């Protein structure tokens, strides 16, 4: 047991002493926005593709959200997610400038689309690990559309607002995301790598 190291990790952050009532904005923020902490983290994690950067981004995003809390109109979850995304974009330009090439919309346009559906192997047999790796390997604009749609179950309208593009663009990005995924998984897949016995 490395208790010394643990106690650093497990800093006891009893947020507010009991005798001091939570201020109204903080309590409202917690009730409305922090309910969606997992959604914020999940998006940040898929955008940054690693735990450490996701932690930085989500922390920055939540604190920003609190500062702009007055600007919240409508549903809290898409609002928070748009702040996570914007925080990520700022963060990546400063910390990972090489990755910003992914934002080039021209890239979106050169992905070919065939009229016939791709030859997808029965999707239910996809290996979990390979599927996760394939999603992580998608270019940013496709990856974020896919995560917002499939994992957050958001409407095209919400995704359009969060990613700041027209609904038609959301539709084409999703179509291409799924197509790219199918292509990268379409090669004969090696199922033996999985550990999970279902």
């Amino acid at each position, binding site marked *: 047991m490395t208790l010394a190291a643990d*106690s650093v990790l*497990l*800093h*006891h952050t009893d947020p507010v002493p009991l005798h001091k009532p939570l*201020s109204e904005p903080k309590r409202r923020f917690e009730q409305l926005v922090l309910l969606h*902490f997992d959604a914020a983290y999940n998006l940040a994690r898929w955008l940054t593709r690693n735990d450490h950067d996701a932690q930085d981004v989500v922390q920055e995003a939540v604190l920003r959200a*609190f500062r702009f809390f007055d600007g919240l109109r409508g549903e809290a979850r898409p609002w928070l997610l748009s702040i996570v995304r914007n*925080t990520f974009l700022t*963060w990546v330009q400063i910390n990972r400038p090489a990755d910003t090439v992914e934002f080039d919309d021209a890239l979106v346009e050169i992905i070919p689309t065939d009229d016939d559906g791709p030859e997808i192997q029965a999707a239910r047999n996809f290996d979990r690990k390979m599927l996760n790796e394939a999603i992580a390997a998608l270019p940013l604009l496709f990856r974020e559309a896919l995560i917002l749609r499939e994992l957050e179950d958001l409407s095209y309208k919400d995704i359009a607002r969060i990613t700041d593009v027209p609904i038609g663009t959301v539709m084409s990005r999703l179509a291409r995301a799924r197509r790219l995924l199918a292509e990268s998984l379409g090669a004969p897949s090696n199922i033996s790598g999985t550990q*999970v016995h279902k």
Partner: protein
Amino acid sequence: MTNEEANRLLNAYIDGELDPAKSLELEAHLAENPSVRAACERLREMSAAIRDKADYHATPAWLEARVRAAIPAGPENVSARWWRWLTPVGAVATDWLRPAASFAAVALVTWVVALGTMRPGEDERITQEVLASHVRATLSNRSYDVASSDQHTVKPWLSARLAFSPPVADLSASGFELVGGRLDYIGSQPVAVLVYKRRAHLIDVFVWPIETQKSEQMSTRDGFNIEHFAKNGMGFWVVSDLNRNELDDFARLLAEQGAAL
């Protein structure tokens, strides 16, 4: 409708984003065109596979606790001053352009808070250790040594490595999915850790034989809920960032089912 047009609409169709008139038109087309219908099915399966298998990354509870603690509790003008203090430039529009500075400041605040409120107590050693084990496993993404949703895989795996055989309950019918098990070392002895999942929340159940029948306890630490109870000579410690109500349900089911095993 041409096949080309139909294929173009398939994504919006499976996402439920097509208007009713277009949907009807597309469905009529699908009925007559097996190849487009097959493409539609594959797309649906792809979507279902992503929803089923893509990782939904849960927030590490320590992170949520840290961020919550960093949110200023005072009124807005206090928070503005707080931020100005963090960033010498002081301009609201530019401070978030300096994330490195903000991150460092938040880390500093957290560290100070941590120093001020740390209170290790000898009597809480077990609670500390199970919590530490849970956080460490979550942090390192290494929650289990054996990954299986099958109790008949997890139990023998653990039994083979321990001097006792932990009860492994199947609670999937109640929405608590078994995802695996691991070994750990708590209170100077090897123990079994059963890992369950509820939505994106991992639940660690630490099990080992105990002699004294201790009373039930529950507590909350750093945003984690912790429950302890004993049944049939086994002590159970349950740790999760799941909310208290659901974790109570889980502990109750575990006590009932664990007793039957």
